[in-house]
């Protein structure tokens, strides 16, 4: 069973985001980098599928040379092959990204499943997985919180929650699935895993950029609502006020 997981390098931000003075980027001078929680789950899901069914996990990313770090992080968790579609100065929008991935995946071939996170942690386009499936002519299920694969019948069952109901999809392989955080509890990298990651080879290629029709003008931060705490009182005197708060939020009736 061959699984390709696509991830995206994003800054690991704290509570307050700092932008560069030109408003073009998040200031990452003091930030680490990661992938989105959905993508962490996608990697974990891929590793579990391969552990259960055999095969290999290939992790693919499109980004700067530094994105190699995210590929190696995935290898530490159980992926075995790394593909870096190395971008230059230009920012790839969702169409360009999808085309680049499609080109790379077509060239490789031989995959049963393409996994994505439901959306990227930074741009939140919700597009790349669907566009890739469309371009490849593959079935796609999005927002998936449970995935079962039967290699024998080459079919997958994917479930998602929607407004209190559960939707169940059956897809023939190869297929594209975008998963959501909560589908599994991702593991931490082991020490031997990290050592394997350090040694892993990375296949690098340069994708073609194209104009998506969208261009970024400037980033700005939304006004953050100032939080405040109210001291309800101290000791026994505070009980009535506490009770009324608990009632107002529905914890007491």
């Amino acid at each position, binding site marked *: 069973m061959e699984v390709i997981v696509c991830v995206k390098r994003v800054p690991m931000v*704290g509570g307050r985001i700092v932008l560069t003075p030109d408003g073009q980027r998040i200031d990452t001078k*003091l930030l*680490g980098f990661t992938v989105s929680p959905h993508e962490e789950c996608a990697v974990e899901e891929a590793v579990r599928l391969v552990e259960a069914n055999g095969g290999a996990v290939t992790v693919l990313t499109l980004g700067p040379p530094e994105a190699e770090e995210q590929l190696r992080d995935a290898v530490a968790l159980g992926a075995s092959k790394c593909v870096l579609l190395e971008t230059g100065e230009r920012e790839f929008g969702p169409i360009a990204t999808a085309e680049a991935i499609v080109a790379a995946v077509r060239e490789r071939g031989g995959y049963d499943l393409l996994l994505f996170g439901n959306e990227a942690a930074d741009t939140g386009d919700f597009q790349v997985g669907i566009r890739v499936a469309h371009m490849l002519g593959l079935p796609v299920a999005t927002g998936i919180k449970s995935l079962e694969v039967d290699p024998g019948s080459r079919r997958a069952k994917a479930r998602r929650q929607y407004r209190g109901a559960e939707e169940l999809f059956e897809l023939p392989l190869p297929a594209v699935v975008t998963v959501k955080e909560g589908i599994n509890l991702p593991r931490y*990298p082991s020490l031997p895993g990290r050592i394997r990651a*350090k040694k892993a080879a990375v296949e690098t290629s340069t994708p073609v950029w194209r104009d998506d029709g969208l261009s970024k003008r400037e980033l700005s931060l939304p006004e953050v609502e100032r939080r405040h705490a109210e001291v309800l009182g101290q000791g026994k005197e505070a009980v009535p006020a506490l009770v009324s708060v608990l009632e107002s939020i529905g914890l007491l009736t």
Partner: protein
Amino acid sequence: MNEVTPTSAGAVVIGAGIVGNCLTYHLARLGVRDVVLVDKGPMPNPGGSTGHASNFIFPVDYSRMMTELTSDSTAQYKELGVFTESGGIEVARDSEREVEFRRRASTAKAWGIEVEIISPEEVRHLVPYLDSSVILSGLYFPRVGVVDSLRAGTIMRERAQALGGRVQASTEVIGIDVNPATGAVERVRTSAGEIETELVAICCGVWSPRLAEMAGSHIALTPIVHQMISVGPIPLFSGTVGEIEYPIVRDVDTNMYERQHGGDMEVGSYAHRPIIVSPDEIPSNEAASLSPPELPFTSDDFDPQLAQALELMPELLGDESVGIRYAINGLISMTPDGHPVLGELPEVKGLWSVSASWIKEGPGIARAAAEQIVGGISEVDVHEADASRFYPFQLTRQHVRARAREGFNKMYGVVHPVEQWTLEREIRLAPMFPSERELGAFCYQTAGWERPHWYASNAPLLERYGDRVMPRTAEWEARWWSPIINAEHLAMRDACGLVDLTAFVEIDVAGPGALELLQELSVAQLDVANGRVVYTSWLDGAGGFKADLTIMRLAENHFRVVTGGAHGMADKKWLLDHAAAHDGVEVWDLTSSLSTVGLWGPRARDVLASASDDDVSGEGFAFGTCREIEVNGLAVLASRISYVGELGWELYVPIEQGARLWATFLEAGRPHGLVPVGIGVYGTTGRLEKGYRAYGNELTPDYDIVEAGMTRPKVKAQEFVGKDAYLSQREAAPSATLCTLTVDDHRSSTGELRYMLGGEPVLTPDGKRIVDEKGRPAYVTSAGSAPSLGKHVLLAYLPPELAVEGGKLLVEYMSEQFPATVAIAGSRPLFDPENERVRA
């Protein structure tokens, strides 16, 4: 909004980490009840380095001060109920480290630290998951433990509050106002209002330099990254109770440690490249993805460590089900010399630094700081941490960072007691430095000065003196040393030596109030004739040594204080602090204006006379006097004293004339057998043969004048700091006496001759530790060759019953015991006991 209350305070402590919490409590305990503790973060973990500390405490054996601070801190943690004893083991992977273990096991014994060298099998018995085949031995400290530093801080803070102290959380300090007229702190401005105060203590760890800058001052520390990962859940640990059951392992040869933390194993590293961060770059509480000093982990830097950790603990860390759950580039503070920065900052009255402290010394340093703030004197001698010890160049960012960069990977290194820095050299150069370089000077750096320790040009003397130079075959003792030192020594004793003393600190005190000020500071009588040179101690209020220096009376109202470079800045602050209360006194630091040479030896008079027409005869220029003479067209201040026990002079000229003075004597001295002589002689061999004491070695606040054997027959009538204590010291029988010991046999078990370097324990003939009635251990305060006597000499304080000349004792070095004899009890010199040479 949580506005500050009250709006005035007896003291404001900034920073609620381990240091600030403990300081707040100790200040309140000592009577500063209206203390306010301010932190920009929330309690109980405001987000500083305390919050990510690994919290383990190994007893410290490399420095007496740090040993005592760590020991006091441990006692305080125990009293707070937050200490868990786990034991700790340093493991050796290479043979150099095994030797280092033997050396350190001995120095640890001097301080009373329980320690034992154990076999790989014994290590494995204590740490069953360690692969004993990769190690050669272990250094086992059974009393190692871990603490809950956040809990400790909380208890301390609550105790302070119970005494009346106030805590102001989530309040950022935005300014520290200094009164421009008095130069004293008057106000702290915060995000929640202003607090009037005359005392501010900066306990902000990695942020401390920023706070000091708010008041126009400097704290010489830099944040630097220490990487740590936490790996778990470890199946073996699932059955353990509490935070830790297995001993902490320090894999010192790979610069790492492994320590159980509940179900996880923490692996910390000092092996990676030094990653220095500016205090201004540390993210705020809001912008940090974890806490501010928990910077994003850079795995590339840690990767090489993984294999080494795996090698040591293969089963436990190689378990594929065990994951790296937490990984940080944690920020810690580093200072240029590795010591904390404690004390009032020289630029601003009332502004204190209590910074660059680790968990292991936090409560101890806080107590010492509180004692100093309230009463001026701390129980633990912390002069090595004195915030005023730095010269301005040492406060520059470049210097601080360079020292941190070079020092970081030595954290677990095998560091020689006189190891020299390689970065930031040639900062202060004497005017004769080009000549010294031509003479092949091997320099040590002191207070930024390049000081020749010996001269390669003197190598031919080795043949002349043969075995009298006491050659050393063991590499450790020959490191940073040369037999040329001893050859220079003998040449000086035979003829004459020329010593560059430009690193001296000279401070002139002038004006109608000068005498009164210096009388107040000095034990010795300073109301002497003009042209007299006085050797004196300065004491602290409790009668401990504060300084040891000479003072020349140049004129009725003009004195020159001369002290060593290493302690010069602290001595200067002591002088300036007291000068503030005197009218009619001016104090000038002339260090950078003057160059000094020493000319000593039986032929010194002949050399000087050949270059000067002035009367330098015994009658014409008496010992202990100073006056201006002409030397080769230079006006020279000559002072007839000696720290090497020879006839001769210290000669002072304006710094631009130092090179000419030096060249004059090199030339004039040639027919008399003069050689350039390095500080190896001046600082060690020359002084030890004469039993001269050195500040910081023998003379510390822990011992008094009587014990040091420097009591004078009379006590001057005038008042001076420490006089009451000094008077009672004279009345009581001393608890220890400074003795000169000679080593009887240097042969080790391998047959090699070994020479102690200082810090070794002195033991009873049956190998027991010696501790005096005040609890002070007997250890070697100074060690070195006495080439004139063909002996290796040790100075040590001994209790009265052992301070008996002819008494036989042992000194332990490299875990072997060597026989030694008490040669002198008291201050009589071993060499030239009647001091005839000095007075010739």
